[in-house]
């Protein structure tokens, strides 16, 4: 028996190693391409970089507008996440802590939009933003991102806030805390683990977002990284090396976030699906 068990384990290990190659290999390959010039790549697409050409990153950054795309992505992501977090936490606190008529109805209405396909709003959002002069503006895109991320944020935070012990709030109330103070000094600090989870989750979603950006932004100077990469791909189809460098510029910040917060991130992405 122990013999066959060893074989089973070996087979298992081979299978999961193969899957790992399938799952992580393409990404590792892109990382290698990003350090090689296109002429090197066309000679041997799968070779290890002979010399690591770091200057390609400088070149992409200064010569191919990636500095603009990166700054746009950064500003839009930071502001949209900030607004989503504050607005979402306030609403979640209210829905979790206050009993009033219509509480569950509001919760249900906000939550149910999670299953809406984006097509149902995208055309009218385009029209609406044009009407208000927010089309092709970073402010408009930020507001749209807030609205897109809000349901999930409220859902996750409400679930967490509702489980905080009521005694805390009763005690604060007796100490004469106002409603605003209860929110800022009790719910926010104690709810921080959940808030951090939603912040990371929203950051990844907004950083990677493509559909709303492609519909609502048209100026080169306002493009985010996903749009910039797509544009560069369209213009320089053959320049594999530089495209790979641009792709890495978009991926590296996410990898950093992942390296620091991998547990939190996985937890956030999967919250709600586990039952």
């Amino acid at each position, binding site marked *: 028996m122990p013999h066959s068990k060893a074989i089973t384990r070996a087979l298992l290990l081979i299978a999961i190693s193969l899957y790992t190659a399938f799952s992580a290999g393409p990404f590792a390959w892109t990382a290698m391409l990003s350090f090689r010039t296109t002429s090197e790549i066309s000679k041997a697409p799968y070779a290890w970089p002979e010399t690591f050409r770091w200057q390609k990153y400088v070149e992409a950054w200064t010569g191919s507008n990636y500095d603009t795309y990166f700054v746009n992505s950064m500003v839009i992501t930071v502001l949209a996440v900030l607004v989503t977090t504050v607005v979402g936490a306030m609403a979640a606190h209210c829905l979790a802590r206050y009993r009033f008529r219509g509480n569950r109805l509001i919760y249900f209405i906000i939550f149910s939009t999670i299953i809406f396909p984006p097509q*149902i709003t995208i055309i009218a959002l385009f029209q609406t933003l044009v009407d208000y002069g927010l089309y092709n503006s970073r402010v408009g895109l930020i507001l749209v991102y807030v609205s897109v991320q809000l349901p999930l944020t409220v859902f996750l935070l409400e679930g967490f806030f509702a489980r905080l012990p009521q005694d805390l709030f009763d005690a604060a109330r007796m100490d004469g805390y106002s409603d605003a103070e209860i929110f800022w000094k009790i719910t926010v600090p104690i709810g921080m683990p959940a808030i951090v989870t939603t912040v990371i989750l929203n950051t990844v979603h907004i950083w990677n977002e493509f559909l709303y950006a492609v519909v609502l932004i048209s100026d080169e100077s306002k493009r985010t990284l996903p749009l910039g990469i797509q544009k560069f791909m369209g213009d320089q189809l053959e320049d594999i090396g530089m495209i790979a460098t641009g792709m890495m510029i978009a991926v590296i910040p996410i990898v950093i976030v992942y390296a620091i917060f991998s547990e939190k991130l996985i937890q956030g992405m999967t919250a709600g699906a586990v039952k």
Partner: protein
Amino acid sequence: MTDASVGRGAIRPLGRVFRISPDGPPLGTVMTFLTPALLVYLVFTAYPVLRTFYNSVHILHPRAADEYVGMQHYVQMTTADPTFWVAVKNTMIWAGFAPLLDVGIGLILAICLYAKAPFARFFRIAWFTPVLISYVVVGILWMWIYNFDWGILNGALRAVGLESWTRAWLGEPDTALVAVMVTHTWKWAGFNMVVCLAALSALPKEVLEAAELDNCNWFGKAWFVMIPMIRPTLVNLLILSLIGKMKIFDLVWIMTQGGPLWATETVSTYVYKRAFQWQTFDLGYPSAIAVFWFFVVLVAVMALKYAFRQRDRLEY
């Protein structure tokens, strides 16, 4: 302000939407906390949804008043637009097969890790990485993998002497849809794995130990014990995956733009094309498709929920 203004019960009945509380908090407090979220919701979600419904029964002339046409768009869409039906067919194929693939692979991977594979933490993180990478990057990367001349797929086929199997995977109508589907599953299998793993880890150890005492092998344990016990999670994952496939846009747009010959056209890419690419300047027609599809997604989700409803809940 009374104590009652802070909700007493953190645990609320889920079934009831309305709750009557005679000593509720002052309206002002509630409104202060809720107004920003409700405002964002009204302006950027509720109003656009209603406006899309309005669009769908009008022709929107760029420089003139909107013209009411009733159900004309819906009639045209269902009776006189073959491309629309191709898009529906492709999306349905995708939504029919891919969720099983996503959840199935995710479940198998999760069981592998649950079976105490070494380096489980490393594998879990490596398998989850594709989930975090943007569709634009994933799409371009896989266009290279599928490249006819130097893509690794054709390279591997040539290396093992299957030269005749090589093809331009994204360029041929027969294989393009499957190729994009594989890419999408590549991105999402890790997500399903992590959720399944979390559900498995939450199972009580005693049940699995009992199965072991009954001399149950791993396959038996997985099939007769684990899968039934994490069934609610699997159903959730299937529904999430289905919703994802029903609205799929990004990856298709990057990789094929619906081509070749509409082989990968999905409802989302078709709506986008009709609204923003064809120079028809009519947002009414694509809005009608969007409304139609909105109801299809709703019905599909409700049907799945109903079909997989738990008749006899397992308690553990």
